[in-house]
């Protein structure tokens, strides 16, 4: 439910420029993430904590993390094609990836987020 927008994304004029930027430095890529949890269960809490931690550590200043409680807003479960909970959805950069579970396997998540190289 909380939205983390402490950093503005770098201005992108067009797709070409974005592509060139991405080529120049992958570290500048902006991440748009959504975390779907169901209620404030320990599992949900763990997932939120883990997601925040990963974002702060590896994506500092270039991410949006939206946390959605599908228990309260079930319509988002359908829209986000959510089956399991918790689910972290990486909407940007493409391709779309879904990480299900309490996000305790950090290495796997970093690999999935294409952030392993940096580490």
């Amino acid at each position: 439910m909380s939205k983390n927008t402490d950093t503005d994304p770098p201005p992108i004029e067009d797709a070409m420029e974005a592509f060139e930027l991405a080529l120049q430095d992958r570290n500048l890529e902006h991440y748009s993430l959504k975390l779907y949890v169901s209620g404030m269960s320990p599992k949900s809490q763990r997932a939120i904590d883990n997601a925040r931690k990963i974002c702060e550590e590896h994506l500092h200043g270039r991410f949006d993390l939206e946390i959605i409680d599908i228990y309260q807003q079930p319509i988002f479960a359908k829209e986000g094609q959510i089956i399991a909970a918790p689910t972290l959805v990486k909407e940007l950069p493409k391709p779309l990836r879904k990480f299900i579970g309490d996000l305790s396997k950090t290495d796997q998540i970093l690999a999935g987020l294409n952030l392993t190289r940096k580490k």
Partner: protein
Amino acid sequence: MSVSLLPFNLDFQGNPPILDFKNLITIATRVNMTKASIENKTLEVLLKSPTGIKGLDEITGGGLPQGRTSLICGGTGCGKTLLAMEFLLHGAMQFDEPGVFMSFEEKSGELAKNFASLGYDLNELVRQKKLTIDYAHLDPIEIEETGEYDLDGLIIRLGYAIESIGAKRVALDTIEALFSGLSNEAILRSELRRLFNFLKEKGVTAIVTGEQGEKTFTRFGLEEYVADCVIFLNHTVTQQIATRRLRIVKYRGSAHGTNEYPFLIDRQGFAVLPISSIGLDHTASSERISTGIERLDAMLGGKGYYRGSSILVSGTAGTGKSCLAAHFVDAACRRGEHCLYFAFEEAQQQIIRNMNSIGLDLSHWIEQGLLQFVNSRSTLYGLEMHLVAMHREVENFKPDIVVIDPISSLLTAAPGNEVKSMISRMIDYLKMKQITALCTNLTATNSSIEHTEIGISSMMDTWLLLQTIESSGERNRRLYLLKSRGMAHSNQVREFILSDTGAQLLDVYIGAGGVLTGSSRMTQEALDKALSLEFKEDIERKQREIERKKIAIEAQITILHTQFEAEKEDLDRLIAKQILKDQVLFNDELNMSLSRQADKWSACQSGNEGKTQ
């Protein structure tokens, strides 16, 4: 009976009670159950959700268990999705029970297109809030499992969908997709159990579909979780003909049909052939209907067949079976009745042309909508399919008369042992509907003519046998009436002739020369005629002779008579002469004596007296 069956009316939620289970054991069970429910009124009876699918409600005794989850399993392309969707559609449209369809395989757009071809407008139902389609996309490529999780997402989505339209029915098609999308089976299994419990708590009647496994009903053992009702769909190919069958493996708390029931998927959707719903309690009409051939009517007690009876016309090739059927159809159409003609070997135009050659114009009955042909090759699909299709045609056209020409060609559609039972079901069904059925049966030339390969003769009420007999270089048709239940009928063989004014029956020649038909009958009749003519002449000649003899005799008699008269005359004359002579003599003697004064006068006198007297 009506009182004791009342609890079952509740069973079916106001639907008419279905009492026509053939199985006596089933009925016995029901009666026992009914007694139990009367004794203990607080006893809760399992409520059922009607599927609205033709036949399935009859087999299950009212539908799927209400508020519980049923499993539908089967191989690829056997109709699981269709059955699940029809359950929801009928619920939404007929029983005012909105439904949620959660698809794991097809997108809602695809589903809408697929069902549009069956005449259902899913989008419209969605707009009316009678149906919700939720496509749960699960792509293993984009999913990574990173720790402990549950299926809350799915459960919440389902719960939301159910709440949003007040759904009473839910279908999950097919939930096994979860197993291919997610790898942690331990979590999945416990979560599935939770999902089914959730559905039960919600009080919805749910259908879960599952792909058939190698040794289990479903690949991932879904039957472990769904314990209330399991329906197995089967799609087998025997002798290159595919047949779909449905079986209720399990139905907790309810009596149900246990057989494999054939079912059909066609333009009108899903239909199960309700075999066991047909009993032997049909009414018997005493109305008689003409066969279309006057002398055949005469053979059948002068009135023809009974309405609603079944007639078998059997015979070898080319004996005129179809012609007999066409006459019957023609006569029925003349009475303004509706006829449905199932032809398995000839096209409609061909039949019309052929029947024109014997003076029957069937085409104008078609134009008037009294006659309808259903032409299909028997190998088009399996026997069960044929019968389901025939059921459907009969339901739609509502005929008074059905012709199946020939019933024997259905043999090619299934192995022989199945055919009898299937055809008996068809005949029972037609009898129940008071439809007169005329079936032709082609007998193989090498087998006994009184033998039907399907062994159906015992089911038939009237059996006509057509036969061709070869003698003196020609084949002639004969018609026998082997049996006709419930009426006095002729036991005589008739000669069956097809002329350009229709079929005719003639008496055969029965005489010294044996039983003769055709030209040998004509020859024999001519011979007989000649022979009798000769006799007649003979007699006349003899009569004339006698007459002549009589005349001759009479002439002789006259001659003799004349002779006799003449002789008699002679004699009389002689006698008169003698008397005269005696008189003269006596007088002379007397005179002499007198003259001689003789004393022997008196003696002479007395002696003469004696002579002359």
